[in-house]
């Protein structure tokens, strides 16, 4: 068992495995995406107060969740890479960062589109918007730091420290911003209370979240394969790949 699983900590074995997984995750992303969008745009009832404009939350909420979750995943893999010196983990962290940044940006953008009709303004300096913006900055810092260092192993480790410092800071930033100002409506999805929204709306949101999840997996795996090829271009296993030979 352990021999089989640890094997995939080597780029040589993870590369083909990732290649096999990508089509499945892509397919799932498409299926969940179609289901989520269909539920969101055609099935979910029009909101009594917010009209049709609220439908952007089907994308907005999933994107926000994903942007925060991906930062944790990224920091996790970066931390594993730092402590166990495993190359694939660090490559995974590098591969996740742009997707996380994209979701943070998407969340801010859709939030602005939602805010204009609802609050009458594109942007308010409220806790959740501000911390999402800061999260985007943290992603950009991580990407910029890694891009500035030529030596891949040093880039991995420096990025890992930054990501871990960021993880410690994210809750501090979140609460400091929250105490600083809170204007945003309360959390719209709560696990403890019965959800106040229609079942179909919740389902649509979950479908979109799953779609983003699958999309992230597929894209991160694609990117990690590219990183592997780039870093290991002088190794024998890359030279022996079918797609490289032809």
């Amino acid at each position, binding site marked *: 068992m352990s021999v089989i699983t640890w094997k995939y900590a080597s780029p040589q074995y993870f590369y083909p495995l990732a290649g096999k997984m990508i089509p499945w995750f892509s397919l799932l992303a498409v299926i969940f995406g179609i289901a989520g969008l269909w539920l969101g745009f055609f099935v979910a009832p029009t909101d009594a107060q917010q009209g049709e404009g609220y439908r952007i939350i089907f994308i907005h909420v999933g994107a926000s969740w994903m942007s925060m979750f991906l930062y944790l995943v990224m920091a996790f893999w970066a931390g594993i890479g730092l402590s166990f010196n495993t190359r694939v983990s660090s490559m995974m962290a590098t591969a996740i960062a742009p997707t996380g940044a994209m979701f943070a940006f998407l969340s801010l953008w859709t939030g602005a589109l939602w805010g204009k009709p609802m609050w009458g303004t594109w942007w308010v300096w409220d806790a959740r918007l501000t911390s999402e913006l*800061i999260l985007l*900055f*943290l992603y*950009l*810092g991580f990407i*910029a*730091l890694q891009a*500035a*260092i*030529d030596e891949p192993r*040093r880039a991995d*480790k*420096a990025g890992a*420290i*930054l990501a*871990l*410092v*960021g993880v*410690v*800071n994210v809750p*501090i*930033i979140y609460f*400091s*911003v929250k*105490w*600083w100002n809170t204007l945003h409506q309360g959390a719209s999805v709560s696990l403890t209370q019965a959800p106040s929204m229609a079942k179909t709306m919740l389902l649509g949101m979950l479908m979109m979240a799953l779609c983003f999840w699958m999309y992230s997996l597929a894209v991160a795996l694609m990117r990690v394969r590219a990183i592997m090829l780039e870093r290991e271009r002088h190794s024998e296993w890359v030279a022996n790949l079918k797609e490289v030979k032809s």
Partner: protein
Amino acid sequence: MGAFGVLSAVVRRDLLVALRRKSEVLTSLFFFVIVASLFPLGIGSEMDLLRKIAPGVLWVAALLAAMLSLNRLFANDYADGTLEQMALSPVPLGLLVTGKILAHWLVAGLPLVLIAPMLGLQYDLSSRALMVLVISLLLGTPLLSLIGAIGAALTLGVRGGGVLLSLLTLPLYIPALIFGAGAVEADISGLGAAGHLSLLAALLTLAVFFAPWATTAALKIALE
């Protein structure tokens, strides 16, 4: 030499080095003064407005000034090999790093704290608010040095280090800014600054514990 002896030796050495390069020390101080003086010119001289924006402006200016001086925290020692000798010495690197951060604060942070009341007067802050400003900066500037040291160590010898350093550290400075400027604002509005100052002190305690450790790890990576 005990831990305290090592610490004071590093601090004394860094202070001596700073004393030999006075211009560098003064540059960030003047930067602070100039930035704080620019705002009334840009915004207008209405005293009501200035009093309102003073905490935020002074704190942001302090933030930028502290960041400006971060570059040289490790860069010179890295360039001439001193840092490598420090890493090789039998004394734990974390202790030496703590000493360097402390020296950096004495050189770059403390002058800001001392000159801040003067700038606060330009913004017509009451003496009470000035006192809170000084206390908040006294707690906040070491925090800036500690967090900034991590960024400085990570960007050591990296392409475009200076700009990158600001990109990395400024988001991490946000809690310090919020509670620091918030303390003065809370005092002005009559809410009392104790809560904000306590949180600032808590952050400082946390940073004193973690930041030298993270900085050391980052330095070791840079020296590999």
